[in-house]
């Protein structure tokens, strides 16, 4: 079933109530188009269903927080806290995303066409069959994958728009500083070279193996299918980062 909501005069509370009411009526088949979105927070917050939510306009912070199942498509930029503590589902952003993208996400996938701000994938987890994945088309800010304890982050370094580019170093590296600081699980793949000084002290570089290439192939293809832009990047040319240990702070104590 298709539903349309015009968000122009709606506050976030009313908008989200409408979305939830629709999903309650048809939890498995709702296609919701939300038009004229302008900064309404918490869209998709806590929704457990298999629905498709298309957002036209810029949604506010905490998009898809605690979400469990839906697919959210954003045809503009997304703001901070997208996918906060999300459990499963997909978020596809046809623009840039702000800070703390996918904070503590435990499952599901986030695709961003453009670049993301600071602390993307912070404290991402993995649990049993749930492996969260973030694929960033452009660049990522400082502290990418901080405290990461599971899941996959891929940074493709394409599509970075000019405005965003100014906030990075003039070098061509596609991530900021302190990548993977405090990381104790999961994997980060970054297109091109990453200088050692950008790495947090808990991560190390590893050569790509066959499994990595298959994984990259799958997710990069998905990314292309969504955004249909750029060439398929040379998969061999990725830097793979994994943590030194699952127990980074094992020797802190006197006992």
């Amino acid at each position, binding site marked *: 079933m298709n539903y349309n909501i015009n968000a122009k005069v709606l506050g976030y*509370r009313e908008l989200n109530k409408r979305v939830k009411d629709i999903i309650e009526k048809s939890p498995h088949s709702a296609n919701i188009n939300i038009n004229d979105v302008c900064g309404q927070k918490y869209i998709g917050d806590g929704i457990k269903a298999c629905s498709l939510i298309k957002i036209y306009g810029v949604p506010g912070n905490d998009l898809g927080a605690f979400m469990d199942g839906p697919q959210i498509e954003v045809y503009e930029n997304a703001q901070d806290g997208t996918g906060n503590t999300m459990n499963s589902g997909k978020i596809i952003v046809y623009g840039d995303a702000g800070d703390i993208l996918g904070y503590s996400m435990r499952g599901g996938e986030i695709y961003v066409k453009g670049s993301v701000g600071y602390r993307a994938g912070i404290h991402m987890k993995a649990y049993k069959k749930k492996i969260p994945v973030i694929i960033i088309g452009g660049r990522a800010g400082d502290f990418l994958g901080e405290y990461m304890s599971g899941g996959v982050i891929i940074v493709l370094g394409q599509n970075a728009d000019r405005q965003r580019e100014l906030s990075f170093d003039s070098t061509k590296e596609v991530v900021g500083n302190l990548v993977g600081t405090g990381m104790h699980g999961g994997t980060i793949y970054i297109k091109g070279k990453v200088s050692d000084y950008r790495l947090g002290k808990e991560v190390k570089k590893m050569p790509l193996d066959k499994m990595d290439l298959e994984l990259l192939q799958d997710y990069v293809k998905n990314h292309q299918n969504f955004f249909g832009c750029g060439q398929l990047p040379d998969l061999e040319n990725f830097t793979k980062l994994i943590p030194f240990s699952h127990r980074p702070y094992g020797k802190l104590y006197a006992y």
Partner: protein
Amino acid sequence: MALKTRQADFCVERDEDKCISCQVCLRQCSNDVHDYDSEEDKIYSENSKCVGCHRCESLCPTEALKIKLSESEFRKNHNWSPGHIKNIYRQADSGGIILTGMGSDSPYPVYWDHMLLNAAQITNPSIDPLREPMEIKTFIGNKSDVIKLQVEEEKPFRIKLKEKLSPQLELSTPIIFSAMSFGSISYNACFSLAMAAQQSGTYFNTGEGGLHKGLAAYKENTIVQVASGRFGVDIEYLKNAAAVEIKIGQGAKPGIGGHLPGEKVTSEVSNSRMIPQGTDAISPAPHHDIYSIEDLKQLIFALKEATDYKKPVGVKVSAVHNIAPIASGVVRAGADFVTIDGLRGGTGAAPQVIRDNVGIPIELALASVDSRLREEGIRQNASILAAGSIRSSADIIKAIALGADAVYIATAALVSMGCHLCQKCYTGKCNWGIATQDPYLTKRLNPQIGSRRLVNLLRAWSLEIKEMLGGAGINAIESLRGNREHLRGIGIGEKEMEILGIKYAGEAW
């Protein structure tokens, strides 16, 4: 090096005449203090391993054991205490941080013990709680600025609320079991708390370790916690609760994060925390989505949105120097309750230097928060839960007179289940089956007995609260809340009395 770095803290005294070499002590001790020599048919004890939990002493069938403080003393020195010296030895050995458990045992003033309660004499009659109804029911949540009442025309004696109140927690006694995660304490301990909360008409708090599946049946009595690590937090977790508490800080370790070492992340702990088995469970010090009051508001409302505004959402902060403006910010951010955890609050594991040196006592924090919220006219917008070493019903009633709506108890609850405050929770070897995941140890705590003892404690304290209320001529705890005229200071200075907002003993109205 001949330096004796493992100075024994305790001394195991065994009365050889009474000892029948039954080896109960040996089997009960997870620290391997006792050892049986079969050739001599004799049990030897290694004092340096003893943590002073008194398990063997309690279970010795012939009362042959006495655990005493170690007689070997350092040279008397008021500056260099044995604690300082021993810690330096340990740190020089290992290069590590000194860990400890439970609340601070440092000799800071305990202001509960410097406040006296009032009683009614002649001019206002005292009330006998055995004969007359005494109301201690408490509601936790945002009370509206204005309450509009409605009188039904047909039944003029029935008065109803005109507008719906924000969601409230209903407590039959103003005591809640404070946050203790499954992982820091055993499942049997969690289960005991959950059952006792249900039977006593109050709540237990899951802590930040997720909700064990076995406790889902107690959701009406569960407060779930959302901390920076977001362990076990998903929409089911939030919905399986009566209220949600955002944990910003803990009294025992203000400003620092939590850290459950990988070896304690067993398969069951990994299930409730929803992380892989054996990895470190790291709670970062800050929530990285909260750097301001505005950000806190965002998380509060993210949780309210997720739970359809049906549950109170509170915020737990530790008592620090600027607690009053912080609490004001928390209330303005939309929290339905503010939990303040004082300096002496307990923990499963914290660096000793933090536990014993950071934060302020709950009494001062509570008084200054209550005063500040009243001054700003927002006290009704949130309830205050006081935590951080509530040891008796007298502490509770004093906390309520200082302005708390209810108190959180954790150490007291553990003590009622057998805890002897040995402060070694972080070792995971708790001989009382509380702070451990070892199945051999956890089965020592029978949840039926544990919950019965907790229910008994709450009943006893509630009776005492009623007695004290009645004695003061009050028949509802609401009349005592923030009523500091019922308190008088003793043995404290003027500044302290000013902050506590009380008069000195002997000062009349």
